[in-house]
């Protein structure tokens, strides 16, 4: 297999799986948010690789435009997510997601 699209897609899959593992397994809410950022970046790598290598898009650059929108939404998500985490910390002095269970039935 010569160097090309597959390498970038598999790198993206590796990063996505690492982020998914962290997001599911961690207890610190800030760490979970960091792992979600890793997942979003993995998707961006795949989109930019598609934009570079796939036939109709490598002149249209739609993949890169999508990546810009994902970066925008990720910035908004990080701001709101960290605000929620700080609000939780102010009310219960902890960012452990397994203790934030007051809505549990």
């Amino acid at each position, binding site marked *: 297999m010569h160097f090309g699209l597959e390498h970038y897609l598999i790198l993206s899959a590796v990063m996505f799986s690492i982020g998914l*593992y962290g997001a599911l397994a961690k207890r610190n809410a800030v760490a979970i948010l*960091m792992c979600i*950022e890793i997942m979003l970046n993995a998707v961006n790598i795949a989109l930019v690789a598609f934009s570079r290598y796939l036939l109709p898009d490598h002149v249209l650059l739609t993949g890169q435009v999508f990546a810009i929108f994902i970066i925008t939404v990720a910035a908004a998500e990080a701001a709101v997510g960290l605000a929620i985490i700080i609000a939780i910390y102010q009310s219960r002095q902890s960012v452990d997601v*397994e203790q934030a269970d007051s809505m549990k039935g």
Partner: protein
Amino acid sequence: MVELAFWILALIMVGAALAVVLLRDVFRAALLLILCFFTIAGIYITLNADFLAAVQVLIYAGAIGILLIFAIMLTRNVKEGNPFGKLKISAFLVSLLVFATIVGVVVSTDWATVTGVSQGVEVPVGSGTTGSIATALFDQSKGFVLPFEIASVVLLAALIGAIVLVRNRR
């Protein structure tokens, strides 16, 4: 040349991402996450996406990195650290399954790639992708003008929402 850069960047990136997940100190994890963002900017450069590489450094490594470090400083509990929860084993199995699925699909799909075309064909030498991205975003007929405007509203809503959430009510 691009291949060598890819392998170096990929190794650093995966190592940094693993360290983000495995380290016990949240602050060090955040610093390694910023290193990870920088290597992703390098990966964008190997993909001829110079504008996105600059955006990646500015927004992710700059803004989001600083935001994360602020949040860690405000909420850090040093002796508790960054432990794993109850789902450690099952989360590992799920992410392994997702990885295997993605790799299987990627390998078995016959991608319509630009074969035989070397780097730099779609971008004239010395011009970069910034102009082409502007055309792709703001083109009259097939651009993304409405999503672009909605994105600015999303950012405004997130800004106001973040201020409202952390405002001290007393």
